[in-house]
């Protein structure tokens, strides 16, 4: 049963989230990119991970469209505000 349950897109999403975490770590500690590009990439990566956690772990992909939309708006607004404040504060 466990194998059946894990043979699902949710497990692929988990692998993606692990890879994205390691990518953000590399962007944060060692790279040739200017800090500003790296920081914006890290924030975008973080909010992309949030999107996948909502969609697949919180199961919003099967939820009513209104709830999915509210979550989507929250994610996009949070990304916009955080990038804006990072760049212009």
């Amino acid at each position: 049963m466990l194998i059946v349950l894990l043979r699902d897109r949710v497990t692929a999403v988990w692998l993606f989230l692990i890879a994205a975490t390691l990518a953000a770590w590399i962007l944060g500690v060692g790279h040739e990119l200017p800090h500003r590009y790296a920081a914006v990439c890290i924030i975008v990566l973080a909010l992309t991970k949030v999107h996948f956690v909502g969609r697949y772990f919180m199961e919003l992909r099967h939820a009513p469209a209104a709830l999915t939309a509210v979550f989507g708006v929250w994610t996009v607004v949070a990304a916009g505000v955080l990038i804006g404040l990072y760049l212009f504060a």
Partner: protein
Amino acid sequence: MTTAQSQAVHETGADARRPERRMPAEEGVWVFLFGDMTVFAILFGVYLFYRGQDPALFDASQLKLNQTFGVINTLVLLTSSLLVVTAVRAVRENAFQLARILTYAAMACGVIFVANKAIEYGQKITHGIVPGTNQFFMYFYVMTGLHLFHVVIGLALLGFVVKLTRKPALVDREQGYLEGAACFWHMVDLLWIVIFPLLYLVK
């Protein structure tokens, strides 16, 4: 078979593959979760605003953090989230015992997170780094402390999930409670996904 019949069969097949849209957990849970997430989002914004006022201080302070703690805790919480969503799906398949084991494993991940955080706080305090050290560390302790409080509440809710999996069957309301507790745990994961890069990585 006519084109219309063929199309009807095709649509029926597509519907069968696509589960009916339904609300995970109760509506009130989502109001609470979005409220909590928004409070944290405001805190993230305030942090970045003050970072912008003195980036040199924030960058120098950030160097005193050990990114490895943050990365390990992120991986631990992501794994716990996979375990919890799999437990919820196991309950739907009536595999209650499996769901219980998966939830215990997720709780173990939560305990590892707390232990990791305790070691990290211990190291910082030993080096004389406390909330009053400077503005960066004030935000570090406030954000991670508030989040840690959520982890502890989440662990209690997962304990409640274990209790639910001991029942022979769940009524709809109990299924809603189970999904609500699971979604709270995923929110704990989600918040750390943003806190970790903001505090440890963004320069």
